[in-house]
């Protein structure tokens, strides 16, 4: 993109995914026309993906507190206490659009991103899961997407060395125009070793660590905030490529550094890269940052400030360290063959000043950009389809004559059939902690050094959510809690990933609002707080309909003694079988 030559105008703003009203608001905040770099920053910070502009008001009211919650929503990942000053950090996140464009790399970088979210908290990832939705497998395109995504998840997680212990896969043609790829990671951290994404301390150096910056994924965040259309193919060159090997080095280097007291704050450069990481870190601390783009390690020649600020190159982190610690930090990263550069410093004026070749390329007040981001209370309306599907008369269905045949057909359908083909491609045992392997209700990972174990599962019956969004939302939380309980553990908290269609359509917005209401009510009833999550909207290809409402929920629980764990298989002939529940 030769964005550099473009002049800033309302048309360009719209090309970047902003609305006319949003552009007016920018003019009003700035009191002048923004520079190209500034406009780029606004467009990603105000994208649906980063600002949650359509969902934010509805996410309020999630129960987020409990005595065991150490960190609720708002950080890179949520954290809960599992006793003895031990904690686990976890989160689930979507990578739907990138996986649709390039399944292997899209899914791989989704795993990479969520792993970074966890280890920036200071937590070593000890388990991963994933939740997948594709169109039916009789279509070669869907088979291509499915096998590419599974290969990508396996490649990244296996190479990084995290066991992928669970997940779910559904096939339904409703997803053929927009598959869903949600990745979850969970890490272990001692309570006094948790790190946050804050840029505190005037004068402290801001450091860039990890891989070099290229032109990957520019406008990825805005892409994740738009429908797919026939021209989506053109967006392909922006695909990010993952490098799990570098990420593994980054993990080890970060954890080594975290044993020292050099770090003040750290954040992953995920969606919207340098922009969102620097703005969010400064905003949380109420500080400003002066950033020197000439020091950014670049992979390609001639990168512009606009490109550096918007690049979504993978395997990078932004850190604020103590003054005087620069060389010590560089030495640790050099041991792991990684770049670490000072790229700015913390200021007290609450502004982001971006300097390049002696010129100020952007000068923005941080608060309005982050906190005055647009918030929409989008209109919603109960879809007419609901009357039709809910008035379905079950008496019109007759019991099939040959039940065995029906049973075999059911068992043979890809959604119900064994998922061995998938999880055998994931290393689910590395780190020798997996005590319940894939294939049961929930996975169980022990915490070495004691008897404790952490159970986890990811669930969503999206067809149910389509038929009755409120009940579907409730049922999703309940299913997760049941899976944890059936493994012998107590559910403690969830992370949710809300995958929906275009929120500007009132019927889709209704599904969103109702599913969220269902999740809230179930969480309150079961006393399971939400500690992290992610929203993915616009999961549809224009003219071809949206995905089913899919609020994926990852539930995490604790078992005090792994010897009391339970698995779902029948153990021996002669045992009694009971049916519990309503």
């Amino acid at each position, binding site marked *: 993109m030769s964005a550099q030559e473009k002049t800033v105008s309302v048309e360009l703003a719209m090309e970047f995914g902003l609305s006319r009203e949003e552009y007016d608001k920018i003019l009003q905040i700035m009191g002048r026309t923004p520079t190209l770099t500034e406009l780029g920053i606004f467009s990603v910070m105000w994208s649906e993906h980063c600002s949650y502009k359509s969902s934010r008001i509805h996410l309020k009211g999630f129960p987020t507190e409990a005595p065991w919650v150490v960190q609720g929503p708002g950080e890179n990942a949520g954290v809960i206490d599992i006793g003895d000053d031990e904690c686990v950090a976890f989160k689930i996140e979507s990578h739907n659009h990138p996986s649709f464009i390039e399944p292997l790399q899209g899914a791989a970088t989704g795993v990479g991103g969520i792993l970074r979210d966890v280890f920036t908290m200071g937590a070593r990832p000890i388990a991963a899961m994933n939740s997948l939705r594709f169109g039916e497998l009789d279509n070669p395109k869907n088979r291509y997407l499915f096998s590419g995504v599974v290969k990508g998840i396996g490649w990244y997680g*296996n*190479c990084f*060395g995290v066991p992928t212990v669970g997940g779910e896969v559904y096939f339904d043609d409703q997803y053929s125009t927009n598959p869903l790829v949600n990745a979850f990671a969970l890490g272990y951290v001692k309570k006094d070793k948790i790190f946050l994404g804050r840029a505190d301390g005037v004068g402290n150096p801001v450091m860039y660590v990890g891989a070099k910056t290229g032109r990957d994924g520019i406008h990825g965040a805005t892409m994740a905030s738009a429908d797919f259309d026939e021209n989506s193919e053109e967006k392909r060159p922006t695909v990010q490529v993952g490098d799990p*090997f*570098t990420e593994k080095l980054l993990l080890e280097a970060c954890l080594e550094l975290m044993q020292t007291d050099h770090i003040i704050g750290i954040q992953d450069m995920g969606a919207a890269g340098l922009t969102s990481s620097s703005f969010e870190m400064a905003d949380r601390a109420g500080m400003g940052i002066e950033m020197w783009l000439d020091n950014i390690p670049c992979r390609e020649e001639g990168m512009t400030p606009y490109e550096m600020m918007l690049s979504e190159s993978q395997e990078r982190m932004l850190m604020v360290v103590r003054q005087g610690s620069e060389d010590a930090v560089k030495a640790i990263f050099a041991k792991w063959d990684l770049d670490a550069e000072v790229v700015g410093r913390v200021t007290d004026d609450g502004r982001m000043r971006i300097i390049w070749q002696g010129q100020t390329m952007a000068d923005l007040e941080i608060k309005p950009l982050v906190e005055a981001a647009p918030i929409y209370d989008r209109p919603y309306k109960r879809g007419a389809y609901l009357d039709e599907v809910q008035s379905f008369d079950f008496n019109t269905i007759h019991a099939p004559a040959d039940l065995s045949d029906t049973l075999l057909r059911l068992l043979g359908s890809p959604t119900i059939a064994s998922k061995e083909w998938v999880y*055998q491609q*994931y290393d689910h045992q590395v780190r020798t902690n997996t005590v319940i392997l894939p294939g049961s209700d929930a996975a169980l990972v022990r915490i070495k050094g004691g008897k404790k174990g952490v159970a986890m599962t990811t669930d969503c019956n999206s067809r149910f959510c389509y038929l009755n969004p409120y009940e579907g939302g409730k049922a999703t939380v309940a299913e997760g809690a049941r899976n944890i309980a059936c493994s012998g553990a107590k559910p403690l908290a969830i992370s949710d990933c809300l995958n929906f269609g275009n929120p500007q359509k009132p019927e889709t917005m209704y599904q969103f609002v109702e599913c969220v209401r269902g999740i809230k009510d179930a969480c309150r009833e079961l006393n399971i707080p939400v500690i992290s999550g992610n929203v993915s909207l616009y999961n549809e290809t224009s003219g071809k309909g949206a995905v089913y409402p899919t609020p994926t929920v990852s539930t995490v629980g604790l078992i005090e003694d*792994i010897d009391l764990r339970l698995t779902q298989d029948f153990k021996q002939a002669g045992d009694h079988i009971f049916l519990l529940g309503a």
Partner: protein
Amino acid sequence: MNVGVVVFPGSNCDHDCDYAATLAGANTRFIWHKEGSVGNVDAIILPGGFSYGDYLRCGAIAKNSPVMADVIRFASEGRPVIGICNGFQILLESGLLPGALMCNNTLRFLCRNTSLRVETTRTPFTRKYRQSQVINVPVAHHDGSYYADEHTLQYLDAHDMVVFRYQDNPNGSLGDIAGICNEKGNVLGMMPHPERVVSPELGGTDGAPLFESLLEYVVSL
């Protein structure tokens, strides 16, 4: 007994090997690949993982790491070296063992249990197994299909160098080979992961005798 676990960038079963060796009663230490010497150890483990991301070929870049020259010296003195999974790939690339490992015939990464037959108990790693004992040990690899030319395969058989064979060949390995040793028997390479089955919670203990054998061997010297 002091066991050194070599850590390459990208190794990820290093802690698991450490865990299994410690459980068997060994003292362990990690040896960073940039170290020029393995130091004062009685045995060396090259762990699994993805050294250098498995880029180019599995084990190809790791074989040139500074520490490998000393590992080769250590092995040539007849002292025990075991390479598991990626470690096996490194032993082949560095010429300590013959043959090569190629992409699984399924073309996919495969993580599952396999059943192995112990073909020889003459090595320091297998003396606590019974000859022809069948054990369950999981595999987790993408490139585990053993290849060697006809001549080499015959040589392996003739010199009792095949240590483990798959009962249910999962990857297309020639001769169902899962693990081999050198002529002397002091260098073992195997694709399956014995360190993953050393305690009942992990679903099995068939890997434990391997580490116990090693301990017994070293103590007996």
